[in-house]
Each structure stands twice: as C-alpha cells, then as structure tokens.
C-alpha cells in the first residue's frame, strides 16, 4: 500500500490517495476534522464534500473514501474488482492503511450498503453506524427504482424531494454557457453510477440478508420521509434484522436527506454516534 498526500487550503479538506489490492486500486480519501474517526461512504453519484460532512467534522475526524473507479485518473481501477466481496476486502485494506482499527461509520445509499457489509464482515471494525437510505434488500411489492436508467431530469426528481433545492442544483449543474462543465459533471455522475452499479446490478440485493446477523454495532437508520427511490419501508426491513437498531424518518427530504436537511441529519447522526 502507498499513499500520496495533498491538502486543499480553501476548505481545509485533506486529500490523499491510498493504493490497495496489490497496488491496483487507487482510492482518494478526503479527510477533515478532529476527534474520533468517522468513515463516510458516499452514494452512487460520486463524492462531494458537503455541509453535512462539514458539520460532522466539527465533532469527528471524517474520512471519506471514493469508491473504486470514481477517483480522478484512476477510472479503470474498478476493473480489478470482480464483486462485492472484493470491494469489502479493499475497504478492509483501506482501514488498515488509514490506521483505523475501529471507527464509527456513516454511509448513504450504495455507501450505506457498503458500510453495513463491512460491519457484517468485520464486526469489530464498526463501533456504531448510521445508514442513510441504504441499499441492500429487495421487496417485490416495494421495488427500488433503477436510478441508472432514469433520464437526468427524472433522476433529479427521484433523488430530491425538492428538485430545485441548492443541493440538487449543485449535483445537476445547468449547462447554460458552461457546456464543458456540465458535460464533465454528467460524465462524472454516469461513471460513478456505472462503477458502483457494477456491484449491485441488476437488483441491489447481494446477500446482505444472510450476513446482517453478524453486525454487532448499534445502528441508526435515517430515511427521507419522501424517498422516491427506496421506499422508507426498507428502514423496517433493516431494523427487523439488526440486533440494535433505531429508525429516524426525516421530513421534507427524499433519497438524500443529508443533502436536503443537512443540519437536522448531522445532528441526529452526531448524537447517535456520540453515545
């Protein structure tokens, strides 16, 4: 394993790239804050440092890795991984490289599933976890919308309760006058969906139901009350299978409550993780 370190002075977010998996997979990690370690796993649309992470960084040392393939200039590294098991092992190696024996974990959507898989594979690594609208299960009556096949406008309406909110505008920049910028944003998003989609296509149930009993840590499930991508009924699916779980439904939020209601979600997550 090797690491390259850099800092971004504007936001005080430290940036380093750690190489795992026989030096074949480069993962950039954004870090900020002080206090106990918190690892954040992002969703299917790529990692952006946001107000929610800033809020958590006031109480924790937040480490946010990019899923394999989503790190700039390391797009093809994801081809070295064959499936979810490889991905979980990569993250185990990454934790070791970060010097983290155990930490509190937070994950959103696909990242929530990754956090939960990691907690099932290595129960001692995760002290507490907060999962925000995680993937991982499938209920026939409550089909999860395949976000990868939605037109950008539709996708935006499925991620956000209010598709005109600031976070939505940031994730889907307008093209007016900045065609190149908008195209780059679209490339980044499509590639992030493709690389994360590699581990869950065509149905995001990859056997967590067989493994979730191994999770030892208390778990908070945070769900937007108006999640149009993954119905909030899945919160009960998780809670019913975990030994120690609590559900928090967030009003006025869709599939990204931490982006639509960052202060509220950061508060409940921080309070839960600090217990």
């Amino acid at each position, binding site marked *: 394993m090797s690491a390259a370190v850099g800092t971004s002075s504007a936001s005080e977010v430290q940036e380093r790239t750690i190489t795992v998996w026989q030096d074949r997979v480069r993962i950039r990690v954004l870090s900020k804050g002080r206090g106990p370690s918190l690892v954040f796993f992002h969703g299917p649309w790529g990692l952006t440092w946001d107000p929610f992470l800033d809020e958590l960084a006031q109480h924790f040392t937040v480490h946010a890795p990019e899923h394999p393939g989503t790190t700039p200039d390391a*797009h*093809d590294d*994801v*081809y070295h991984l*064959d499936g979810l098991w490889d991905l979980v092992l990569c993250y185990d190696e990454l934790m070791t490289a970060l010097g983290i024996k155990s930490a509190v974990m937070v994950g959103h959507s696909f990242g929530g599933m990754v956090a939960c898989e990691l907690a099932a594979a290595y129960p001692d690594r995760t002290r507490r976890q907060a999962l925000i609208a995680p993937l991982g299960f499938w209920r026939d009556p409550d089909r999860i919308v395949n976000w*990868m*096949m*939605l*037109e950008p406008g539709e996708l935006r309406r499925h991620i956000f309760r209010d598709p005109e909110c600031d976070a939505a505008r940031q994730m889907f920049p307008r093209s007016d006058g900045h065609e*190149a910028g908008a*195209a*780059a944003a*679209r*490339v980044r998003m*499509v*590639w*992030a*969906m*493709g*690389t994360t*989609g*590699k581990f869950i*296509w*065509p*149905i995001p149930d990859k056997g967590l139901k067989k493994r979730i009993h191994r999770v030892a840590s208390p778990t908070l499930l945070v769900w937007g009350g108006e999640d149009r991508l993954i119905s909030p009924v899945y919160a009960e699916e998780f809670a019913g299978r975990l030994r120690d779980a609590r559900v928090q439904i967030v009003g006025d939020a869709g599939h990204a409550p931490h982006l639509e209601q960052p202060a509220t979600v950061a508060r409940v997550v921080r309070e839960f993780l600090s217990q």
Partner: protein
Amino acid sequence: MKISAFHLMPYRELPEDFEKRYESVWVTPPWWELADARRVGQYYNWTLDELTYAAKCGFDGVCTNEHHQNAYGFMPSPNLMGSVLARATNGTDVAIVQMGATLPTSNPPLRVAEEYAMLDCISGGRLVAGLPLGSPMDVNLCYGITPMEHRERYREAFALTLKAWQAREVFAWNGRYCQLATVNLWPRPIQQPHPPIWVPGSGSVSTFDFAVEHDVCYCFLSYSGARSAKTMMDAYWRVVAEKGRDLNPYRAGFLQLVVVAESDARAEEKFARHVEYFYHKCLHVPAMWFSPPGNQDYRSLVASMANPVRRAENPKNLRYRDFVDKGYVIAGSPATVRDRLKEEVIKGLHVGNLMVLLQIGSMPHELALENIELFGREVLPGLRPVWDDEGWVNHWWPERLRQRAQPSMAAAAGGA
C-alpha cells in the same frame, strides 16, 4: 457480392396508439395486453416461410437474429429458427447466417459454440457464425448482465468459442467469468478451421477495433440507411487501413431496409404504412436504455459527452417519403432500388456482404413474399457481380458457397 435476406420476426398487429400508450417496444411491452400466442405461432411460421422462400428466390443467405422481450423482433433463440432453415435448405447453396446467438447471455457461452457446430453439421458446412455483443436492452436490461462486465464477458466468450472449435486436445478454461475444467466440444463444425465469423455492431469504435484485430466481418446493423452510416463506416475502413488489413469489401456487412414494386408510386401504395409502422412503433424505446452507465468504458464515455453525435432526428416525426428520401428505406421500382443500393450502400459504404430486410413491421405475409420475389427476380441479379471485377475473395463466407454465380434453384413459382 453476397446478398442475404434478414428477418426480425416482428409482431405485425400492434395497436394504432401503441407508441402513445406504452413505454417501450422492448423490455416492458405487456404480453397479455398486446399479444396472442396462437397468432405468434403463425408469425414464426410465416417468418420461416418467408426466409425459405428467399432461399428459393436466389438469395445467397438467410439471416436470423436474437432479441428478448421485444415486440419488433422476438427470436430469443435464433438457433431454433436457424436449424429449421438449415434443414429446409439442405441441398442448396444458401448460407445459414446466424446474426446471431449472443455470447454474454449464454451460460456457459460454450453453448453457442456447440449449437453453431450443430448447425454447421446439419447444413453441410453452410453456417456463417454471427457473434454479436448483444444490445444493452437484451443483455443488461432483460438478461441482467452487469453493464460494466458486458464487453469483458463477450471477449472472454469469443476467445473460448474459437478455442473450443479448434482445439485438438481436451482443455481447461479458467476464465474470469467462465470456468470449465474439461472442454471437449461435440460436435465440431464441418468448416475448418472454423465457420466464417461476422461481428454485428451499431457503430461503437471499440467493436471496430475488435473486428479488425480478429479479422472478422464487421456488420453494421442499421435501421437508418447508408447516408447516416457513412461517417461510421468510413471510420471502420480507416481502422482497417491503420491496422494493415486490405480493403476487401467483404470485411463489411450492412443491413438495409428495402421495398420494391412495379413502380416507385406502387411501392408507396403497397408499403408506406408498413414502413411507418416499423419506424413509429417498432423503434419506440427510451433513449437512455441504449447506454446504461458502465456499458461504455470511461474513454468512450468522455468522447461521447464531449462530442455528442448530433441527436438523430426522431423517426416519429417522419413519414414514408422522408424515410425514402433519407435512405432509411430504399424503395421503388426494381431499377430505382438496384441503383440506390449499388451507389449508396454497396459502393458508398464499400460493402460486400449485404443484408436486406424485406418483411418490415406490419407487412403481411403475402406482401412480404411479393417483396422477396420481386427483389430476387429483378434486383438481386444486377447487384451480385458488383465486386467481381476487383477479384476479392469473400473469406467471410462458407468456402464451398463462395463461387456460387447464380441461384441454385429456379425462382419458385407459386409461393412458399
């Protein structure tokens, strides 16, 4: 020149308002609302009759292809159709062109090698082995293959297929996507070292590279004619030249929709509504479905976002005359059709293996037979010699059929 009759096997009686009422003709069209199994049985038999009739009318080959959950073409197993055709055309010089069984969705992909070997044996060495990558709708959406693995799975399966046909010893295949400890194909194809291979594509640059590197025939299966294909096919020929291959026109195949009648006006009367049915209903698929995230590699994704191919016009806004003017369909009298095919398609794209779609959309059986018969009688003979004076050898055609100069059977009178 080799000219084959292609068939999609469409549902011929979709409702008038199909494209307004339903999301897509592919993946999600509701069977119970739209289709009837007895009627479909009739369609399969008509399809086989139409292709068998084409064989009798002097065509060089008959083509079937694979699609899934698709109301415009539902031969989920083209090899079932191909085996009927192989049997029905025994004793003739007609090639069985399978365009074909899709490797990434066959499990294990060895199954394709086996079935093609069967077809080659049944047909007496008349098989053309199409080895398509498969569309995202079929492979990713219907058959659940992860988009990011689609091309890798294809390449591995392609290599396995070639080795399985040719290996003299039993071998083990320890692949990334397929592990087989004892590969020992029964039967092997008659054609040695293996049947000619065609790789159909829809213009992806990585498929050009693959086709040229493996020295196979690249087939552009287009529904929008030669004019819109020109840039694409020019790019293909550039790759051929760059990689040091000769510009043998038989390295390229092209699919063209054709309707032919006694006169241009008569062609419009007979076929206009069937052509419009095809473009308005049969191609009704959400644009996003053609490119699931991960299906394109990163470099191709960046390239296509930076230089988006100008969005093709929406065929739903076009009518018969537009389709004809733009060359989506080549239509008219035998002379008109022959001249346009020769100039725009054969010479224009430098194509030696032409496929023509003669049963289009809602076209009824009798009309399809008329179209096939007239094409075979009045158009085909004038096109067959196009490349003869240049002396190219069609290495991508069954060897014993290459020299065929004229129809082996008299054009059948009296229908199929």
